């Protein structure tokens, strides 16, 4: 695997045909972690002994004809806000530095039941918002495409580890873009599913009504396989939706004949500024979608600034509530990025929060009304490539309304897919947005685009530790 890192789908086919041993695959991932993670900092904890035991069991079960399906024997890792029974789960924070959960998060359990091999726990921005930060017990993950650049967050370790081939897939969470940002900037694929599709139970909350859990992987096809295991109703999550779960993999397609794509042009041409190379990359991606058979029309939604105002007020208020007790006792034990951002909620009022929730319903209704004539929406994932750590600023996120936030407000599913590379060598990406619970459609469109473009052939060149 040193030169050719398989996707989950490729590894699965090899494992099921007994051409690849899950033990060999796990050992290769662990070797890459040992070789490269000293500089990348994607892992907070490597569970080598447990991973090899799980891989050996998978090999034994598959040999005995007891295959659990396409994820059996596949190495993955979890963002460190996902509770793992008996395994330290820190949220990348001093506050939870010694925390060992007694139960798995529902999605962790479901992925284990699907036969995955758990390599370890991945870096995050502290409590999924405070990063990238150097004032925490562990350093921030670095971007495998250029170590001086950030990964995007908050699922920073997941993005870095997948791009570097240290794991084949992983979990992320997304409250204002935290699956999509590192997917975009690390050049991997990720889906923020519809709100309520994947359980949040056992995942440390950032914002109760905006948090989404979901998978990240090298390809969209792999995301479909992981989502299959993660999705489904969970009585432990009060926001969990009881909806039929389709076969995501079987609904992937390679042509887009008849698909109606809505381009939210004003998001990136008027509401925020994007890099000219991102614009060019997006234009080229639209050309590919058109060549695959899709029709493209402009769609006008409310301004990005309205989504940002709504999202930030809800997010900061709910995050403040989650941490209010610890804030009073241990405010300075949090990293500066997290505590200073979340503290701003103290300046908001109850009526401000409720007005944001009223605006949220209004925006959701307006988006629904404006998008009845299209199957998916497309916009840039982020304004440009990942910035350097040196250029990263605690308050930069407030200066321009973020492109990912609208779908946290509306709960719509979004798949992020690489659209090529900036002249700096860093990845660029677009978002493919679906109607609520039409997660399969966003995956299908993103997959068709990915199969028609060459971007999956390129991996970052890594530096050994």
């Amino acid at each position: 695997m040193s030169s050719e890192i398989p996707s989950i789908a490729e590894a699965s086919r090899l494992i099921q045909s007994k051409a690849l041993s899950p033990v060999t695959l796990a050992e290769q991932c662990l070797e890459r972690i040992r070789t490269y993670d000293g500089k990348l900092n994607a892992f907070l904890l490597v569970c080598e002994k447990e991973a090899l035991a799980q891989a050996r069991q998978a090999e034994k079960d598959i040999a005995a004809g007891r295959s659990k399906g396409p994820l059996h024997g596949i190495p993955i890792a979890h963002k460190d806000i996902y509770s793992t029974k008996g395994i330290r789960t820190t949220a990348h924070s001093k506050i939870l530095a010694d925390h060992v959960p007694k139960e798995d998060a529902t999605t962790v359990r479901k992925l284990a039941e699907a036969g995955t091999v758990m390599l370890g726990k991945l870096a995050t921005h502290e409590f999924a918002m405070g990063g990238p930060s150097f004032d925490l017990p562990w350093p921030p993950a670095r971007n495998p495409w250029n170590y001086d650049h950030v990964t995007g967050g908050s699922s920073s370790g997941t993005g870095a580890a997948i791009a570097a081939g240290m794991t084949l897939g992983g979990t992320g969470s997304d409250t204002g873009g935290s699956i999509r940002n590192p997917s975009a900037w690390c050049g991997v694929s990720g889906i923020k599913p519809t709100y309520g599709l994947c359980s949040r139970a056992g995942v440390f909350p950032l914002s109760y009504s905006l948090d989404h859990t979901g998978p990240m992987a090298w390809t969209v096809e792999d995301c479909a396989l992981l989502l299959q295991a993660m999705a489904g109703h969970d009585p432990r999550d009060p926001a969990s939706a009881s909806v039929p779960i389709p076969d995501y993999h079987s609904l992937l397609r390679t042509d887009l004949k008849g698909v109606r794509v809505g381009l939210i042009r004003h998001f990136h041409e008027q509401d925020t500024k994007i890099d000219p190379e991102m614009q060019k990359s997006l234009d080229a991606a639209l050309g590919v979608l058109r060549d695959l058979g899709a029709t493209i029309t402009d769609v006008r939604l409310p301004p990005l600034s309205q989504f940002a105002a709504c999202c930030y007020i809800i997010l900061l208020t709910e995050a403040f509530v989650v941490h209010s007790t610890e804030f009073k006792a241990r405010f300075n034990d949090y990293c500066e990025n997290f505590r200073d951002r979340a503290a701003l909620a103290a300046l908001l009022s109850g009526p401000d929060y409720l007005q944001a929730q009223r605006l949220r319903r209004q925006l959701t209704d307006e988006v629904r009304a404006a998008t009845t004539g299209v199957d998916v929406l497309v916009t840039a994932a982020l304004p440009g490539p990942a910035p350097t750590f040196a250029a990263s600023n605690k308050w930069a996120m407030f200066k321009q309304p973020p492109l990912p936030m609208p779908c946290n407000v509306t709960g719509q599913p979004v798949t992020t897919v690489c659209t090529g590379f900036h002249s700096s060598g860093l990845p660029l990406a677009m978002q493919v947005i679906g109607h609520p619970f039409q997660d399969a459609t966003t995956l299908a469109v993103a997959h068709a685009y990915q199969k028609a473009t060459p971007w999956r052939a390129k991996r970052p060149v890594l530096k050994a530790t």
Partner: protein
Amino acid sequence: MSDPKLMDRAELEARFARAGLTLSKAQLDELHGVSGYLQQWVDIVNAPREMAAEPATIFAREPT
């Protein structure tokens, strides 16, 4: 967004105190410096709307 208007400093300090946060002068200075972003968001969410417009406290699969 346009240049944000900062919150009144005394009111800002009172709100942090009411929330139980003990902040240094440097922390207060920095948070005061970015308080204008909040004010912009508050202005947006408080735009007039019909009295019957309800909050989105839950996500509905289909319009009701």
